[in-house]
């Protein structure tokens, strides 16, 4: 051990490191020094760098030096270190790992976890007698902060450790945690924060997240000590009427983004970066066979994957969706003549089963695990020496973090294979490989804090103790995602929490939080606090429904009885779109949907050799990153790049150039061609499935208006195909500028606004905001059946609110979500801007090689439409057909 490090560590710790034959790493000592200097710090390090120990080392040293408390009521010691992890399992895992050094050094440190599973007597005791180190999740932190004892509980806090920060900050959970952190820093100004993160594109975003953001002196709007200006809008009758809805070019998009921009500068935590050791050894799996033009099963690659598993010690096989996991697992077992221990792990499987797989994995008893993103986070899975990623990588950072999973010794290169499932995925894998070699990152931008999350936080704040509005505003703005929050928006959120915040002030007497004569806001009664506790959190699970194997009735043929075993659960919205007779893949087999009986989906086994009809559309869960999309377009546009592609790919691209053309990197190619008695239009924006779905919805509206009678469209990550009974090509030839008009940015004005009125995706988005903000109560599985639970359809609420108060804070929250979430409107907006004046329309006699790929989605993917009358007319016609037959 070097002299410098020796001098920086207490003897107990030096001895312990030595006894293990280790040497403290430089970044671990750096973090120790930062802590001594009272600095908050972001540690960016690859997997296997000893990040967790680095995060805790300063706490362990301080606690060891402090010595044991007497534990008496008089000498009551507060919590010293709070650790937050995105996963309950990770918190438990880290607690276990932390116990080892503490016990081996005989340190007087009490470590406890607090999760949803912690029994109530233990929770009560933790409040009464706080441990030295508490490991928990963002939701549990929110609950602790809403506790009446929160002030006392946190007042001695010295350090907050935020694990896997890069994954936490990308969602509303990150917003909730940011607000919690801001509160913690108010309660314990002496505390410092440590963020542990994988490599990200903009470390400064995370550095800002860790420390309170400072602001210019308060805006003049509210100089007068809470009188007049500030609360005027909250007084009954004085609130100004909401703006009438603006309509016009880009207005809706602008409103979606209007939630405020984060300061470019702001206060930063210190930064410690650990350079990755060896370059990962990563390559594309190349086959002699031709890959299909579409599809995500990678069936041709299974024998090669099986061989790789055989050659390695332990392999993680990552796939993008649950159904891909099912399929891959099944295919590998078909090949498994050697009886290798290959297991399956995904989110819909029974929890007990998942735990068994995780334990077997940690114990080194498994040869391979086929898994989805549920295994993505940093739990230590033992000695993985190979990662195989089946299907599209979707993002460069995403794939690097996955590969980081392999090989926890950071000085040896990680081994990984990317396995494309179709030809487009070859391009995507090529682009991802380039990015990995350049260590280019494409993690998402920092979030602007969501208003629905803020509403939840305000109610929680009121549950803890009374507060002054101005103080809370300052505190909230010290959280980086909310640094740009305007006072008007803050006020709107407070008004929402109190009475719903409607221009028509009808609910004053039912207010949930009220301002007392002392100027302090407090929660009305214990019942409201109870309501808060039940609704805390930002994860609105889609309701799951059980899948049960049915038996055909002997006495009544054609009737299926719920007599078989339970297979698992699927999302309710997926079940809703199934028609009897549809087949789909689940729990390792092809099932036939029979009926929904009571609250279960009844299925039978489909005959052997049946292809599942209904694919999972979850492939779109992670859309292709903008960064990779741009690279894919560049590869397509530049024939010199083609040398680096497999020959089958080059051949295909040459054919496309002969029969149609290949667009430049910034152009949009639109092809039209007749087929059967329909007219097709395809285009390739490469903006991800979600943005394409929105584009398709808007294009069909415009084609409808142009009387071209669109019949439907399909979308994938790369492009869309619209089909119509009207001849689009002829119209475009007759009207110059037709295509430019069709794809013009003003579709994000009225057309978008009209579609949002009925869009089922928008309604789902609104429902999530309504639940998070606390407008309606969370439904718990099984509860809705008791009948005692009063529920209201948020779709009805959406319709009414949209009509009467289109600028209400909840609608603004939902629009902000739609800009980046299920509708990805922002990305569509950027794309439309990019292609302005760069649309190349190519009328063809028949389908081009490029277009075949998206055409293949027809029949495989569902057709999108929110037009109720169309569906009903079709159902009515079916009745007539029946009558005439």
């Amino acid at each position, binding site marked *: 051990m070097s002299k410098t490090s020796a001098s920086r560590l207490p003897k107990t710790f030096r001895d312990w490191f030595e006894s293990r034959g280790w040497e403290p790493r430089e970044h671990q000592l750096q973090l120790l020094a930062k802590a001594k200097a009272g600095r908050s710090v972001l540690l960016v390090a690859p997997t296997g760098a000893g990040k967790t120990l680095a995060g805790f080392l300063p706490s362990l040293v301080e606690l060891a030096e402090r010595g044991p408390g007497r534990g008496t009521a008089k000498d009551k010691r507060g919590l010293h270190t709070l650790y937050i992890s995105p996963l309950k399992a990770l918190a438990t895992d880290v607690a276990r790992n932390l116990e080892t050094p503490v016990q081996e050094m005989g340190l007087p440190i009490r470590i406890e976890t607090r999760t949803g599973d912690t029994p109530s007597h233990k929770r009560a005791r933790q409040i009464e007698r706080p441990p030295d180190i508490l490991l928990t999740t963002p939701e549990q932190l929110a609950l602790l902060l809403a506790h009446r004892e929160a002030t006392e509980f946190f007042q001695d806090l010295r350090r907050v450790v935020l694990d896997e920060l890069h994954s936490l900050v990308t969602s509303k959970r990150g917003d909730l945690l940011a607000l919690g952190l801001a509160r913690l820093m108010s309660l314990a100004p002496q505390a410092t924060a440590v963020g542990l993160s994988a490599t990200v594109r903009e470390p400064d975003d995370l550095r800002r997240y860790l420390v309170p953001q400072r602001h210019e002196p308060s805006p003049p709007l509210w100089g007068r000590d809470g009188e007049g200006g500030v609360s005027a809008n909250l007084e009954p009758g004085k609130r100004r009427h909401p703006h009438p809805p603006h309509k016009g070019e880009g207005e809706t998009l602008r409103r979606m983004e209007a939630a405020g921009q984060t300061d470019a500068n702001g206060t930063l935590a210190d930064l410690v970066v650990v350079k990755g050791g060896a370059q990962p050894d990563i390559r594309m799996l190349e086959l002699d066979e031709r890959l299909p033009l579409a599809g995500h099963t990678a069936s041709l690659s299974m024998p090669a994957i099986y061989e790789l598993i055989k050659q390695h010690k332990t392999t993680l096989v990552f796939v993008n969706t649950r159904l891909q996991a099912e399929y891959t697992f099944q295919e590998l077992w078909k090949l498994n003549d050697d009886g290798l221990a290959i297991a399956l792990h995904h989110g819909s499987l029974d929890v007990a089963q998942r735990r068994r797989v995780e334990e077997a994995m940690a114990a080194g008893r498994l040869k391979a695990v086929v898994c989805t993103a549920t295994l993505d986070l940093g739990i230590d899975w033992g000695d993985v020496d190979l990662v195989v990623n089946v299907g599209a990588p979707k993002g460069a950072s995403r794939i690097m973090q996955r590969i980081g999973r392999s090989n926890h010794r950071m000085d040896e290169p990680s081994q990984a294979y990317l396995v494309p499932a179709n030809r487009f995925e070859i391009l995507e894998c090529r682009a991802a490989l380039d990015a990995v070699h350049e260590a280019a990152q494409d993690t998402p931008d920092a979030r602007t804090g969501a208003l629905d999350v803020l509403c939840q936080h305000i109610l929680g704040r009121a549950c803890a103790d009374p507060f002054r509005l101005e103080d809370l505003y300052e505190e909230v703005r010290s959280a980086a995602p909310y640094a740009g929050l305007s006072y008007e928006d803050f006020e709107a959120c407070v008004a929402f929490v109190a009475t719903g915040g409607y221009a028509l002030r009808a609910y004053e007497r039912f207010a949930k939080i009220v301002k007392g004569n002392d100027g302090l806001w407090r929660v009305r009664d214990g019942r409201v606090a109870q309501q808060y506790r039940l609704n805390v959190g930002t994860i609105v699970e889609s309701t799951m429904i059980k899948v049960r194997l049915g038996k055909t009735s002997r006495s009544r043929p054609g009737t299926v009885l719920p007599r078989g075993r339970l297979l698992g659960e699927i999302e309710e919205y997926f079940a809703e779109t199934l028609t009897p007779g549809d087949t789909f893949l689940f729990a390792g087999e092809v099932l036939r949907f029979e009926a929904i009986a009571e609250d279960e989906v009844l299925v039978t086994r489909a005959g052997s050799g049946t292809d599942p009809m209904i694919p999972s559309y979850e492939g779109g869960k992670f859309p292709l990153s903008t960064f990779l999309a741009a690279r894919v377009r560049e590869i397509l546009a530049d024939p010199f790049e083609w040398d680096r592609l497999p020959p089958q790919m080059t051949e295909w691209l040459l054919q496309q150039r002969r029969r149609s053309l290949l667009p430049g990197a910034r152009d949009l190619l639109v092809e039209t061609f007749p087929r059967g008695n329909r007219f097709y239009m395809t285009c390739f924006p490469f903006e991800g499935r979600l943005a394409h779905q929105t584009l398709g919805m808007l294009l069909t509206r415009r084609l409808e208006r142009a009387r071209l009678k669109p019949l439907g469209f399909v979308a994938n990550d790369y492009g869309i195909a619209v089909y119509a009974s009207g001849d689009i090509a002829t119209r475009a030839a007759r009207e110059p500028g037709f295509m430019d008009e069709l794809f013009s940015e003003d579709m994000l004005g009225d057309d978008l606004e009209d579609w949002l009125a009925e869009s089922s995706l928008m309604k789902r988005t609104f429902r999530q905001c309504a639940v998070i903000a606390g407008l309606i109560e969370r439904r718990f599985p099984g509860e809705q059946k008791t009948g005692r639970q009063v529920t*209201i359809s948020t779709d009805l609420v959406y319709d009414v609110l949209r009509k009467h108060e289109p600028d209400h804070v909840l609608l603004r929250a939902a629009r902000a979500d739609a800009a980046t979430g299920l509708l990805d409107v922002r990305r569509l907006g950027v794309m439309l801007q990019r292609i302005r004046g760069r649309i190349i329309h190519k009328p063809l006699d028949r389908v081009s090689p490029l277009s075949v790929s998206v055409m293949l989605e027809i029949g495989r993917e569902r057709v*999108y439409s929110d037009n109720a009358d169309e569906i009903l007319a079709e159902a009515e016609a079916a009745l007539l057909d029946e009558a005439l037959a």
Partner: protein
Amino acid sequence: MTALRKNKQTTHEIELAGQLAILDLSGGLYLPAHDALLVADLHFEKGSSFARRGMMLPPYDTRETLDALADVVSRLDPRVVIALGDSFHDIGGPERLGDEERSTLAGVQAGREWIWVTGNHDRILPETIGGQVVEEMTLGSLTLRHEPVAGDQAEVAGHLHPVGKVVMRGRATRRRCFLTDGTRCIMPALGAYAGGLNACDAAFKPLFPNGFTAHLIGTERIFAIAKTMLCRD
């Protein structure tokens, strides 16, 4: 003008116990023989009812429902309007009705007969709300009441808030609907916050032992859908 629009929008006709009945896009049912408009389950003040329990739903549901009601009444201009029960979400509803809504309601009632049939949510209605209050009544061959009663008697009722769900090639839609077998008609709920019960629910079975046709309310018109085409939720 009114007559023209009347013809254009309300041509969805059915026969009910020997009478002609016109199903309106609003969810109302018009009986030309009596010049009577029937509406069901208005659930006025449901929003404020929830607000009392801490769920601050937008307080515009009554206004929205009244607008729909005012629209169909002005289009059809019936001699009598009969509300088939659960017109208010709870007994305190009439009390909470805002001034503006109260005067809109009075305007809709003016110049015509108005009958409130009581329902399980509004067993008692104050006199100040205008019109007559009855528990049930007959109109020609039809009995009008809130809760349907299984049996051979021809009736029009509400209470169950039927909705029909249709899935065609993976696309689903769920809409309010009238259910009828030619003798009985269960009306859709008109209230803006009135949820729906799927027409496939067991509750409808004893009422229609020989099946029914569902008349689903679309955006532009009403669609007659066979029971076999309806899906469960």
